[in-house]
């Protein structure tokens, strides 16, 4: 059976050139980048070259980039690091209801430690009300954390405008750009962003390596205390091979950006058009025009997402769902519920997130097999009776 991967927002395969770039640093180039002798010099240079490559994708300078182990670490570092560095100024943080758990649960933790958190609502398209953001800022506000693009729906937030507001009010602005990096052009030279999290494995690099951008002059308390690595901002011997792979992946993402985005948007549009033509009672979630090119989140009425995923998996297709049953919790997607969607419909959502190796043939295969799957599951559903 052919295997088709439509879950690129979960993770991406390591591309061949990235793997090849990493191999020497798992074999002959094993030195510690902190060493001054021959064994460490090559790896030190490799880390710094990779830093330049990642900076190239974001439009920042190398001293502003801290390598971390994951997007989650970057979010923790940015939010806790800033909160504890500026707690003398205030204790108020503004974020949104639709952030990744790496942000939401970090804020929840800070709330137990005396910080006040405002969680902004989104509308039914998943968009923020910037007036509500402005109104939420108080003299005690020290941080705004709003994701660049939502992992479930692909909705892109107005990072430029939010940055302007934050700057005007003297508030530090962090954005979790884990889903955006490589999937939309980012230029930190023109954005008023102080802190940005990105991750390697979402853009065809390896897992276990990520980065936090911290604008010059933004002071953070380290999350991981240790040696003088990363200019004393993040202790721990560098994951050299991972960093090299991440750098290569960032370089390729930048090089191929325009062609890749056009490719993804055309596949995504074909997928949504095909689904709408062949299946009734479905909804495409999230703002139609303010969305990543690769993400399609669709709710299928009267059926539950996990059972759709199991059916797709039996046909070789990997996708994901906003259903509670796939997340290990009892609640359906907090993102879809925050958009005002009913619980039934949230449970019936499937996310197709496309990537560079996907083809028109794969989309057409999906569009062919999906209608009978949905029809079969609906014929078993007590909610479907009479809905026709």
């Amino acid at each position, binding site marked *: 059976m052919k295997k088709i991967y439509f879950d690129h927002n979960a993770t991406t395969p390591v591309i061949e050139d990235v793997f090849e770039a990493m191999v020497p640093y798992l074999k002959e180039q094993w030195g510690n980048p902190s060493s001054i002798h021959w064994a460490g010099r090559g790896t030190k240079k490799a880390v710094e070259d990779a830093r330049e490559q990642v900076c190239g994708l974001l439009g920042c300078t190398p001293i502003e980039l801290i390598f971390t182990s994951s997007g989650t670490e970057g979010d923790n570092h940015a939010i806790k690091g800033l909160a504890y560095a500026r707690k003398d100024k205030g204790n108020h943080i503004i974020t949104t209801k639709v952030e990744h758990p790496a942000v939401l649960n970090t804020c929840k933790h800070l709330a137990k430690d005396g910080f006040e958190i405002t969680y902004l609502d989104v509308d039914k398209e998943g968009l923020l009300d910037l007036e509500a953001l402005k109104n939420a800022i108080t003299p005690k506000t020290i941080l705004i954390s709003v994701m660049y693009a939502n992992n479930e729906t692909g909705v892109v937030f107005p990072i430029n405008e939010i940055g302007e507001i934050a700057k005007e009010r003297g508030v530090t602005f962090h954005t979790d750009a884990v889903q955006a990096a490589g999937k939309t052009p980012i230029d930190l030279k023109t954005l008023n962003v102080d802190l940005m999290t990105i991750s390697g494995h979402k853009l065809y690099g390896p897992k276990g390596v990520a980065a936090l951008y911290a604008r010059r002059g933004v002071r953070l308390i380290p999350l991981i205390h240790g040696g003088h690595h990363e200019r004393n901002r993040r202790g721990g011997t560098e994951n050299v091979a991972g960093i090299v792979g991440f750098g290569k992946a960032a370089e390729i993402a930048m090089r191929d950006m325009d062609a890749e985005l056009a490719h993804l948007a055309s596949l995504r549009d074909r997928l949504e058009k095909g689904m709408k033509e062949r299946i009734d009672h479905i909804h495409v979630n999230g703002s139609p025009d303010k969305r990543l090119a690769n993400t399609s989140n669709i709710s299928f009425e009267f059926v*539950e997402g996990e*059972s759709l995923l199991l059916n797709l998996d039996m046909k070789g297709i990997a996708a994901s769902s906003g*259903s*509670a049953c796939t997340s*290990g919790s009892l609640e359906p997607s907090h993102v879809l519920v925050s958009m005002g969607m009913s*619980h039934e419909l949230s449970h019936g959502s499937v996310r197709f997130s496309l990537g560079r190796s996907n083809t028109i043939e794969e989309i057409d295969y999906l569009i062919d097999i999906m209608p009978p799957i949905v029809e079969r599951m609906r014929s*078993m559903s*007590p*909610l479907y009776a009479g809905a026709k």
Partner: protein
Amino acid sequence: MYSEKVMDHFSNPRNVGEIENASGTGMVGNPACGDIMKLTIKIEEGVITDVKFKTFGCGAAIATSSMVTELVKGKGLDEAEQISNQSVADALDGLPPVKMHCSNLAADALHAAIEDYRKKELEK
């Protein structure tokens, strides 16, 4: 994550549908949890002679629904009432721990259907 038996019942569910003029109907679960089960039973001389289900839910919800229909067909009411959510899960070679609470409602649906039947009998 699911056993082969769960996947078998999920892929080829037994006794899907609704019995017309059922002796008893049991509906349990709620949309917030993502699982709703409707079980209809036909009872003749104290024995469950037919049973059908319709379920909105995940793989575990559908498999437990299908399994309970197999377990209960041909059983007397007293015996049927002994079937628990745990025994349905056991018959499927177990369920992932997170599914034991949220999607393991099939025996509840069965008990609700029997209760519905008994209530109707009293009203006769």
